[in-house]
């Protein structure tokens, strides 16, 4: 139900006389859409005083759109967004997304729908940096502020911030980590990318190959995409292993790619012999790290993306704070640090102990 497209019209939130009705509607819709809506009378007064435009603070409705629903990563983004909404008070998060990251057109339509329904702000991750640029512009033209999370657009307007991992820098580090794990000598390595053409994918691929260039003893012998499908990742990894029996290391650039690569390596009976550096931290990835199947995981902070996106958007709408981009940071998870408190806050983020700030 959380994924249905909602076309119902809402009264503009700024209009005071409509506010009560909006709250009623929001509360009624809550059960159906799984959004978060918190009333806090004290908060109203505080924000009203701070509102530079003098408008009533009113409840806010934000559309928060992942690239696709169905992956652990985006579910954590959602938790961060809803946590921020809860803390800000009187903010409804409309969580909605396409079912496949490849469905670029579907996402364009989704953004357009939220422009049509006049939400107060849109926080989203672009499935395609070029294709979504007009959608962002259309929202701005309609007077709806936009904040990007995880993946921005190209071009990205000045007033649109990006709350994301510095993918390129983190991928360079991943290559360094792979070189470190493999040690001296000549080694063949492979790269499982996910969605050729998406900006995040491009940044990770470029960062990784840039990092590899610093290590003469590593040769990239295979590079194939998984299209964010575990079965596909497994298939291409199996075939790369077949073509390169001496393969020593794999860098897999997102959750489904890592899981499929690890499955293929396991099936080939090479677990522990082939170094896998992965990205993201789905439960099975962490289990693979603990068992030694995976050597290290580059863990982003999706909670922080949703959290910063919604928090800053709310501050912008209520207090006129300019929206500015921020790096949401990564953590390199290994067997050594997987059980530390820092890792726990990243792995099981909750609104009680959010991995933010």
């Amino acid at each position: 139900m959380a994924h249905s497209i909602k076309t119902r019209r809402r009264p503009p939130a700024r209009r005071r006389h409509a506010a009560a009705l909006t709250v009623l509607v929001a509360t009624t819709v809550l059960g159906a859409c799984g959004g978060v809506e918190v009333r806090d009378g004290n908060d109203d007064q505080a924000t009203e005083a701070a509102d530079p435009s003098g408008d009533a603070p009113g409840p806010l409705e934000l559309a928060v759109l992942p690239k696709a629903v169905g992956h652990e990563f985006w579910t954590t983004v959602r938790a961060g967004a809803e946590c921020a909404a809860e803390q800000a008070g009187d903010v409804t998060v409309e969580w909605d997304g396409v079912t496949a990251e490849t469905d670029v057109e579907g996402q364009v339509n989704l953004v357009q729908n939220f422009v049509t329904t006049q939400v107060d702000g849109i926080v989203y991750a672009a499935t395609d940096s070029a294709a979504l640029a007009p959608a962002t512009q259309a929202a701005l033209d309609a007077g709806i502020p936009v904040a990007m999370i995880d993946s921005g657009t190209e071009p990205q307007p000045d007033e649109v911030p990006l709350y994301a991992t510095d993918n390129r820098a983190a991928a360079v580090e991943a290559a360094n980590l792979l070189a470190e794990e493999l040690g001296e000598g000549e080694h063949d390595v492979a790269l499982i990318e996910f969605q050729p053409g998406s900006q995040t994918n491009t940044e990770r691929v470029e960062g990784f190959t840039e990092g590899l260039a610093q290590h003469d003893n590593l040769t990239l012998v295979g590079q194939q995409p998984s299209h964010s499908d575990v079965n596909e990742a497994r298939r291409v990894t199996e075939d790369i292993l077949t073509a390169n029996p001496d393969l020593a290391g794999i860098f897999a650039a997102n959750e489904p790619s890592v899981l499929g690569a690890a499955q293929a390596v396991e099936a080939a009976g090479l677990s522990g012999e082939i170094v896998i550096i992965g990205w993201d931290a789905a439960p099975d990835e962490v289990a693979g790290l603990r068992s030694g199947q995976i050597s290290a995981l580059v863990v982003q902070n999706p909670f922080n993306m949703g959290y910063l996106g919604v928090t800053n958007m709310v501050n912008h709408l209520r207090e006129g704070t300019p929206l500015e981009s921020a790096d949401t940071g990564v953590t390199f998870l290994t067997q050594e640090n997987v059980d530390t408190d820092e890792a726990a806050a990243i792995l099981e983020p909750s609104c009680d102990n959010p991995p933010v700030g």
Partner: protein
Amino acid sequence: MTTVERADEAVRPGDWLRERLSNALSEFTAAAALIVLFVALSFASPHFLTADNLFNIGAQTAVIAIIATAQTMVIITKGIDLSVGSVAALAGVVGAMTVRDLGFSVWTATLVAIVIGALAGLVNGLLVTAARIPPFIATLGMMSAARGLVFIITGAVGVYGLPESFQLLGNGEIAGIPFAIVLTGLVAIGIAFLLSQTQFGQYTYAMGSNLEAARRSGISVGRHLTTVYVIAGVLVGLGGMIAASRVNSGQPNYGIALELDVIAAAVIGGASLFGGQGRIIGTLIGAFLIALVRNGAVLLDISIHVQMVIVGLIIWAAVYFDQYRRRRLESRG
């Protein structure tokens, strides 16, 4: 079409021969392409012609081959099933949850997955026969509804944390042969037998060639057509369970655009979207032709984009040759 004539009791020897020849030629074209590719890859990559690689290809293709078999049955009836990817995902995640959350064995989970597939097939079948909704639309609705159900029951998160035993169907072996390959073989033989050797098979072709003629000749069209969708659903459920088992998790996003792969396999293998034509052996050849292109491309480190172009070319070529040959046969007749 032989079966139609039997149903119509209007058999002409020439038609029968032409039809046989037509089917054989269609499969021959695809099979020839398969053999050429196979030989070429054997020379191009030293790693291609190895037992490990061939078993890999077999296991990788198992799910597509099984679901393409289901699709072929539906296509023969002049139908189409767009819901196979969504239903496979539904069966896979429910199977995975049956093991993880309810603690049942992988066998029970497989049974549950098959029942889910059968139910989806039953709904498809009833929509087509009782509600008179065209197959394209009926299964388009199921494609969306089943995917939505997957997201609702999983909360849009993969089903992880499954025991080792869950991998039996996808990663297990029987006498050194991957279980998935054995299952594909059993399914293919079973359905090929059903289609070619039984009255049910005759009715299936008859309905696809001329539904009205089939009805008038006394076939209980509604019941048989529904049964075809149910059997297809059973296979889709099994396929979804194998796919989940291969990656030891229930993936809510599994099988998006899978319907295109399996329709391509069936069409390359000689099935006609106009109904009444298609055989399981042809579909298997089609599925493995696509699989070989993908395997070969990775072995030779060819980009995914080129692979997609090649698959497109093969679809065009297969159907073009098929049409060409058919016209030739008809003009001669």
